[in-house]
């Protein structure tokens, strides 16, 4: 915009005249329409981000004096036992996310063929996505409590209560319990996305395939899968970054106790509880951000190699990526 202004000044037009030209009008609308969004973006995203990077080089609390300690915080992340364990927990969430994708793909395929009560099933499976994370926390605390919902259901199926584990305390199983609550919540949302993608396939293709005598398995393999591979792959990438930043289930259900503290939960605890290790928590956030950026970069390359797609499609992927990142109340 400044450049525009300078150019016009060179033409020795007065400012008043320039403002009346089309260019001038454009400049005004560009400035007025971008000013507030950019101000908000700067104040609540880039300023905190800059601060975060700054904090990561200090030993500090929220208030009080701080000491510059260089890269000590970053070294700590890779030597502390709790941070490394927290990173390992991501594997649980990654496996859960992959199971979730497969299930979502299965149900989406089922429901995109003619199904009696299809809308009901779709709605029932999708609805959990609309419940707030904190409500889901209570629902699953209740669900997993000894002798309550899950135990009762399993007893109906013939299990003895004595043989059942404590779902949220037993360290052999509690992370899976949390992962399940996440799958329960997001599977339907994935399914709806996949149904949308499948529906965008040309109906004529199915008709032609049917005429050629293709069965449902073949229809899935040769028509449905190729047309939705982009969104499936994209969701796979999201599964990786999402499981690294898994936060809500342990935060609201177990508060990270009994070995369920994922990377973000641990970070939240370090920053807010006890000695308030704000510097270390910031460094953890920076490290995770780098990992996510690298994975996103790989995704971009991967799409280019796999599909040989032009920039237009990459733009699409990026946008989808953004949306999926911003969902889930992080």
């Amino acid at each position: 915009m400044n450049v525009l202004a300078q150019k016009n000044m060179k033409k020795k037009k007065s400012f008043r005249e320039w403002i009346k030209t089309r260019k001038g009008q454009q400049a005004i609308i560009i400035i007025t329409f971008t000013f507030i969004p950019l101000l908000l973006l700067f104040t609540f995203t880039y300023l905190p981000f800059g601060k975060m990077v700054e904090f990561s080089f200090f030993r500090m609390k929220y208030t009080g004096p701080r000491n510059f300690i260089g890269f000590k915080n970053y070294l700590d992340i890779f030597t502390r036992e709790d941070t490394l364990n927290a990173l390992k927990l991501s594997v649980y969430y990654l496996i859960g996310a992959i199971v979730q994708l497969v299930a979502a793909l299965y149900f989406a395929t089922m429901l995109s063929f003619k199904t009696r009560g299809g809308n009901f099933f779709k709605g029932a499976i999708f609805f959990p996505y609309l419940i707030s994370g904190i409500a889901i926390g209570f629902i699953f605390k209740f669900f997993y409590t000894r002798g309550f919902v899950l135990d009762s259901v399993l007893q109906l199926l013939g299990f003895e209560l004595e043989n059942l584990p404590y779902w949220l305390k037993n360290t052999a199983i509690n992370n899976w319990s949390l992962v399940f609550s996440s799958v329960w919540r997001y599977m339907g949302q994935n399914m709806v996305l996949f149904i949308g993608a499948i529906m965008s396939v040309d109906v004529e293709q199915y008709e032609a395939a049917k005429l050629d005598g293709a069965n449902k398995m073949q229809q899935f393999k040769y028509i449905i899968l190729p047309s939705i591979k982009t969104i499936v792959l994209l969701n796979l990438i999201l599964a990786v970054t999402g499981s690294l930043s898994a936060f809500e289930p342990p935060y609201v259900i177990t508060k990270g106790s009994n070995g369920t503290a994922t990377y973000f939960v641990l970070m939240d605890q370090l920053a807010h509880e006890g000695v308030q290790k704000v510097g270390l928590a910031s460094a953890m956030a920076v490290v995770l951000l780098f990992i996510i950026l690298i994975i996103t970069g790989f995704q971009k390359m991967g799409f280019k190699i796999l599909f040989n797609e032009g920039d237009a499609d990459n733009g699409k992927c990026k946008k989808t990526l953004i949306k999926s990142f911003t969902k889930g109340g992080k």
Partner: protein
Amino acid sequence: MTFIQKTNRYLVKILKYFSLILATLIAFIPIVSCINTAMKSKEEYISTTIMELPSKLNFSNFYDAWERANMGRAFMNTSIVLAFVLTGSILIGSMLAYVLSRFVFHGNGFIRLLFLVAALLPGVAMQVPTYKIMVSLGLINSLPGYILVMMGTDVISIYIFIQFFENIPISLDESAIMDGCTYFGVFFRILFPLLKPAIITCMILKGVATYNEYYMAHLYLQRKSLVTVATSLYTFTGPLGNQYNMICAGVLISILPAFLIFVFCQKQIYSGLTSGAVKG
């Protein structure tokens, strides 16, 4: 059709409906058991198992939960937040999208990149420095402060609007300009009314996200009078933590609005999600 093909077809059908019913049960059981428990009186809750139905429908838990968690106040606060956040996000998103999709200028690509990268920054992680900034701006414990943060971290609506603008022919703008319309006029009189579908999509996606947001609300709205529907549920942690008959009632109250919107706007929710992500 041979016999084997026929049985195969039936097997596939059985498997299909079996798996669908199973998935529906899994989706329902946690919620239905919550409804069942919420209907029980305190004595009944203690004396019966989870699976037993209440002897008579009892709504006192809902009343208790409503009072204890100050949910009247919570619904009022959440409505205020929703009204401002939705209006703000829609105006900001559509205005920015208009400028970015209609004008070629220095910094256009850069602004897009800024918002793209912003979406990649993990939100929870940024709360440590954001909290400090909020403190220094004096925005802790103020609804306007929370509303600003919620608007400031919004990227979804911008992208929905950009995508929508790209499908409105630019010749529409040009002919309006020819007729002597200003750019502001083009935006507010010609284009904004056309954005209705995108606005509905935005309201649903952003509305659900805002209604359910609890992490930042818990952090920035600590005063009791500033409780939102989502944070009102925090009342049930601590000493009340095992009175599940009341907790379930509270949880159900908080879910009800989302459920009603889902029942009445199912189609819009699905298409909003897919248009937000698939065609992206």
